[in-house]
């Protein structure tokens, strides 16, 4: 019921091409998921102890400049807002817990999609090509991005159910497949104080990893445990500030293909969404195997 795509560029000069290369991938996978889409892009970190908060207004109209003035008054004069249709990135060095609280109190209908120094996250309903147009994804710049297209079952297709799901800071996850024990996982995690926003099975996977990482596991160690505890069929594609990570379950019945050149690593549910990429004819193309954790680091030269 989904398509997933991911892209990581290997040279600084290619950062500005990230969105242009990723957008056709996303639109193509709209065949697998025409109802809603989400995209997380990672770019150079904001400095000076600041964080970016990705905000989404849904169907409501919001006066972003008014929100910005209130934030400068209530939180800190350093607040900057970059708005893009019903989406905005709010940057500030204020303590994130304070910011969350301020948003929940003052703007309860706003969705906080992500928090981090590198991540910016978009979600909306509609066919992926509508999102590409609305948010000008083709102009996005960054080191790496993951995106997801969704075939929804709930009638009011809400952005809350759209992937990517986030946990903590600078972490997101997209999922293709169907977990068979998400409720058991959710109840176990809720007992440990982890809050869920949806009953979507993907969120169970995301919160499981959040739990393990907040307990000190690396992402890879958390995924090893996830392969044991999560049941069902899943291809998971994740991103942190400095890497892309992919894993498939033991059955490996949900598709995934990767293509790598000197310039990029591209991942998709179907090869045809990669066919437009430059140099694809000479790319190394492979299919990730079951129960193996694949990760690609952003190269240090890119991060500088």
């Amino acid at each position, binding site marked *: 019921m989904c398509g997933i795509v991911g892209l990581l560029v290997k040279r600084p000069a290619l950062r500005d091409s990230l969105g242009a290369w990723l957008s056709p991938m996303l639109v193509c996978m709209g065949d*697998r998921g025409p109802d809603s889409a989400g995209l997380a892009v990672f770019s150079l970190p904001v400095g000076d102890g600041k964080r970016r908060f990705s905000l989404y207004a849904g169907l409501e109209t919001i006066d972003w400049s008014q929100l910005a003035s209130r934030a400068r008054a209530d939180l800190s004069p350093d607040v900057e807002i970059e708005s893009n249709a019903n989406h905005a990135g709010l940057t500030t060095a204020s303590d994130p817990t304070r910011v969350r609280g301020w948003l929940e109190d003052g703007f309860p209908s706003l969705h906080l999609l992500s928090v981090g120094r590198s991540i910016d996250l978009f979600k909306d309903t509609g066919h992926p090509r509508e999102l590409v147009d609305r948010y000008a994804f083709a102009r996005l710049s960054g080191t790496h991005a993951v995106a997801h297209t969704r*075939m929804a*079952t709930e*009638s009011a297709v809400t952005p809350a159910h759209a992937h990517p799901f986030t946990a903590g800071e600078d972490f997101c996850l997209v999922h*293709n497949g169907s977990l068979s024990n998400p409720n058991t996982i959710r109840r176990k995690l809720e007992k440990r104080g982890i809050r869920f926003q949806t009953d979507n099975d993907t969120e169970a996977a995301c919160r499981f990893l959040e739990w393990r990482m907040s307990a000190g596991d690396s992402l890879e160690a958390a995924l090893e445990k996830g392969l044991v505890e999560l049941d069902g*069929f899943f291809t998971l594609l994740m991103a942190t500030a400095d890497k892309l990570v992919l894993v498939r379950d033991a059955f490996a*019945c949900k598709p995934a293909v990767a293509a790598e050149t000197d310039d990029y690593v591209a991942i998709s549910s179907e090869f045809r969404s990669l066919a437009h990429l430059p140099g694809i004819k000479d790319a190394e193309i492979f299919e990730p195997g079951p129960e193996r954790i694949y990760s690609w680091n952003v190269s240090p030269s890119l991060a500088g």
Partner: protein
Amino acid sequence: MSEFTSLEESAGFDRHVLAYIHQAAETGLYEIRGLGAKRRVPSFDDLVFLTASISRYPLEGYREKCVTKTVLGTRFAKRPLELEIPITIAGMSFGALSANVKEALGTAATQCGTSTTTGDGGMTPEERKSSKTLVYQCLPSRYGFNPDDLRQADAIEMVIGQGAKPGGGGMLLGQKVSARVAAMRTLPEGIDQRSACRHPDWTGPDDLAIKLEELREITDWQVPIFVKLGATRVRDDVKLAVKSGADVIVLDGMQGGTAATQQVFIEHAGIPTLAALPLAVEALDDMNMLGEVQLIISGGIRTGADVAKALALGADAVSIGQGVLMALGCNRSDYQTTDGPRDAGADYEALGAAPGYCHHCHTGRCPVGITTQDPVLEQRLTPAEGARRLRNYLNVLAMELTTLARACGKSNVHHLEREDLVALTVEAAAMARVPLAGTSWIPGQHPQQGI
């Protein structure tokens, strides 16, 4: 000793459960049997019609028309199915049934202007020849599946599951894997057939969409594609089937039959047909697909009243399997010979069954020659006699359907609506989402709330 002693049976450990435990302990074998769920569940019997009165006028039978014509598969296909009655014959395999029976089904269906469906074993020439409208199933096993038959089909039915065993694969025990069956299924003769529960070349609705597209490409987008589901997570499944490209949804409730599967599946998996149907209608309505994607309901449809109630609750048609076999003679105490009827009692007894209690399709020793590959037993039902019985049954169903529809003032059976029904029990009211008779109460629904 008191004169008031009596034998007291336990409800939990009744004779059926005792027999199950004793057999399990003795043999180490779990029970495999045919037909569908035997235990009582809320069903169409728990609904009644609000027929004509002062506020609603009935139609005269015979003189005033009541249309039964039914079109299936209008969404994408160039050639939708046009049926005379909203009653189709469900998928049942050659292998489960004899060749004579498959031919009888086709003949009767053609005479009544409706369709038959192949099963988990492929298309026989007898059925294709005798059945004017033939739906070709594509199952996880792909036994006998081939492009020549696919191109001859009038519709394709992608089987995700069936009501008797949603999540389970097919099964045919060795005694029914005759030479002909084995050849069609590419199996050694006489072995127990194991079947896959998932399709080999796709998993999940996103990849199903691509698979349905392939079948359309191979058949040049001419014929409708049905998607058949066993009734479990009905709302989500129907929506995903529609999004995957289904022209028609076939939904099979837990009372649906099989020729052979584990007892645990039959009785303990899937939800009643009565509960499944409104969920499917709601899912289609949510997607604004009512009328564009047709809905066929199956699983224990027996009478014209069942058909009428199913249509009233929103189905476009029903599909019948077990009822059709019973029309042919399943569980009858006799079978026909050229010298007249002969009693089959001894043959039932040899199976450990009796007429009216038999569910031993899996043995291949069907006393009335229906679910068998045995050449001697097969002769107990000729294609002509089978066709005659089935035609009669279908005609009776159609007459009962139109009788009730006319009594509700409908000139077209597809105008039956859920407001024509009330329920006799609280469970049925809740499942069917119609009021409990004598009240305006639908359990689980706020009075002001739309359904």
